[in-house]
């Protein structure tokens, strides 16, 4: 069914031209260095139309809550963007305390560099900014994105005005830096100036260790009982000890969103790869219906 090769090439060239044209209409200035930048995960690169991220753009990672793996995934992209000796700037916004306290005193959650080192970040090229208030944070983010000496900026910022967002995008375009923004999952569907928007959610497919039998599951809330039984329905061969994340491409400039992939962590190499034994429909709807029966009986 495929068209002959010359026709296909012509079609691809046309699509590329159109994409550029549309981008121009959208006000996107193509960077001088338009080689794609890897996201650090091969499976994610494949989802992107350019085969990777572009310098001078913003990337959003939405996650439903803390501990979901989005920071690590963003860090993998930062590692790639900082490859040729550029600096990584981390904006530690969580420390919004008064200026009187020294920076090393207690904060809510802070970026923890030893873990970043284990993820392959060169600590000598890592700079951590701790702005004291929101205005300073925005200013610092803007300055970092504008600086050509910075490869990537890693920041957790939930509250972002649309105008400020556009300002950041222009700053990234000016400096040719990659802006990695970690944001809350509820911001999905809000206006964004990010080129790429990922949604990262963890996957559970494991049978809980202490839960054995029905007595315990009845006392637990209905939701977790469902999860419990659903997990139990997965064959033992599918249970895997490593961490699994489901990453969905929500939005992507110049491409279609909506595709998703399940990643698993290779702990020794500190890299993510596509989970091979992942079947797209391994959690059928029917199983969920069947699960509720024991609860009703109890």
């Amino acid at each position, binding site marked *: 069914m495929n068209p002959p090769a010359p026709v296909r090439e012509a079609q691809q060239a046309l699509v590329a031209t159109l994409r550029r044209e549309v981008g121009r209409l959208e006000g996107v200035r193509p960077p001088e260095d338009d080689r794609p930048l890897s996201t650090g995960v091969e499976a994610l690169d494949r989802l992107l139309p350019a085969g990777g991220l572009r310098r001078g753009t913003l990337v959003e990672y939405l996650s439903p809550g803390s501990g979901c793996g989005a920071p690590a995934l963003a860090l993998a992209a930062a590692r790639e963007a900082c490859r040729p000796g550029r600096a990584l700037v981390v904006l530690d916004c969580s420390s919004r305390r008064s200026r009187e306290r020294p*920076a090393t005193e207690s904060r809510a959650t802070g970026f923890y560099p030893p873990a970043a080192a284990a993820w392959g970040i060169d600590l000598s090229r890592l700079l951590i900014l701790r702005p004291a208030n929101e205005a300073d944070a925005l200013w610092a983010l803007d300055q970092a994105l504008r600086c050509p000496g910075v490869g990537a900026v890693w920041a957790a910022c939930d509250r972002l005005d649309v105008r400020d967002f556009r300002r950041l995008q222009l700053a990234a375009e000016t400096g040719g830096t990659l802006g990695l923004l970690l944001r809350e999952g509820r911001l999905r569907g809000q206006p964004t100036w990010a080129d790429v928007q990922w949604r990262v959610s963890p996957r559970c497919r494991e049978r*809980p260790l202490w839960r054995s039998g029905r007595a315990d599951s009845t006392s637990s809330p209905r939701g977790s009982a469902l999860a419990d039984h659903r997990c139990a329905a997965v064959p033992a061969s599918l249970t895997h000890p490593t961490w699994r994340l489901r990453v969905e491409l929500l939005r992507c400039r110049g491409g279609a969103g909506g595709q998703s992939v399940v990643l698993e962590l290779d702990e020794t190499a500190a890299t993510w790869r596509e989970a091979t034994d992942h079947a797209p429909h391994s959690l059928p709807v029917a199983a969920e219906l069947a699960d509720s029966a024991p609860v009703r009986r109890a």
Partner: protein
Amino acid sequence: MHLSPSNKVHFAPLMHPTHTPILLHARDPRRGELVVACSDAALARGVRLNMPLAEAAALAQRGGACVIQPHDPAADLAALTRLAEHCERFSPLVGWQTVEGSKAATNGRGGQGSGVGGREWGVGPDCLFLDVRGIGVLFGGEEALAREVVAETSRLGYEARVAIAETIGAAWAGTRVQGSGFGVQENAEAPTDSRLPTPAPLPLAVLRIPPETLDLLSQLGVTQLDQLLALPRESLRSRFGERLLLRIDQFFGRAQETIAAHRPPPQFAAEWVLEYPAERREVVEQILEQLALRVARALADRREGAVQLHCRLDCAPGGPLFLEVGLFRPSAEPGHLWDLLRMQLEQAALCCWGRAALRGPVGRVTLEARLTAPLENRQGELFAGGEHEIERQLALFIDRCSSRLGADAVLRPELTADPLPERAMKWKQGVRSRGSGVGRQKWKAALGTEYSGRSTKSRRRSAASSDSRPPTPDSQRSPLHRPLALYDPPLSLHTLSVVPDGPPVKFDFGGERHTVSRHWGPERIETGWWRGRSVRRDYWRVETASGRRFWLFRSLQEGTWHLHGEF
């Protein structure tokens, strides 16, 4: 190299023949007039230092005429300055004071350096330090140079002892152990590091330590340098203080020391006095811009760049306003300096300008580059975006951020070998700031100053206990070994456990109840009692039923559960 006039009498007028005994006396608050210096001829007649003047005068006058004069430290210093000026023909860097640590880099001179920071004992400086690195060749060898120095000083009427050594401490020691005349210390004469002095059986007086310490040590039976070195360092520190260890280190070249030139280095400062005090901010900005331009020009003329800028605005009623700017790398660009100053001015304006148009009208503006370093010479690049350009842009960014956010908000992490997660790294500031004094910290061209929130005591302890191990064991481990976000301090958790020493089954956090589905651990982390409050924790990595991963620990002392991080 170290030149030591054999005694202070020579600083006095030289009109008397050398065989006439000369005494100098000064008033001691408790013992009255004492002899503080005397000539060899006086020594020969039995006069000793610290002898009451009446007794000494009687002894000295026994054999004929003698000269007795009050000691005049100012005249001494003036004579030493004149001698230093004479010695400038031998070395570009002559002085009698030394600086520990950092000024070397800022003056652009490494290594062989400096001396006694105004003698803490005795009656004022009695030696000159000359930086003769690489200069011996010009005089036909270092020994010939030393001879020439002695000849020159004796022409001026001084009797000098000269020693050339790798370190200032060793040179000083060399002049003390020599019998008379001059000598090039044979174990330290070669200008290589391998010829640093060895702990020969030298008397302890060769270290520049106060006589009280010397007395105390001799009471303990320690009179030789090698005896002192055999003692454990830590106990020396606690008994005799940091100074002794510093002197030992300086003797062997392990601690940096520089000669402070007797001519003060050029000042990079500019001042603007207003006839009518200015109230408007625009005027002040205009003046500051002009001053930045002047300072930058003065710096650029000498190929120096500012590392620290201080600005003082004298506001008539409200007292002066100080601005301080630290730079990541030396710069003499007027635009950049002004940019940084403007940001500081804006911050200050937010604090005080907003309320009442400044604290008061500004009558005088002073700008000074307190700390400078040589500019790096860089050839211009044909194509933009080279590596140097990237470095330069990054430096500008760090300067700007430090200026607006504050120096302790721009940090670089450095891993340590401490097993306690909170202490597994240290923070270094991006730029130099006032908190890190000039003399205390080494200034490395690339990195800023060390910044650590711990008390010096615990840092010292941990330095002794753990820093000897190679650092960064964590980077070898799995990336999931430590979480990317750490709670500091750890959050207390409500948990439900079944197994006594096992992980929790459920815990409440963030308004939800999390069920633990998988866990890894425990990893026990304990710290020694000598590190302050002892810490004993069992860490667990847990995965909840929804797939989120947390790092929990149970305090073994209290038995309570805490959330310490998120992956």
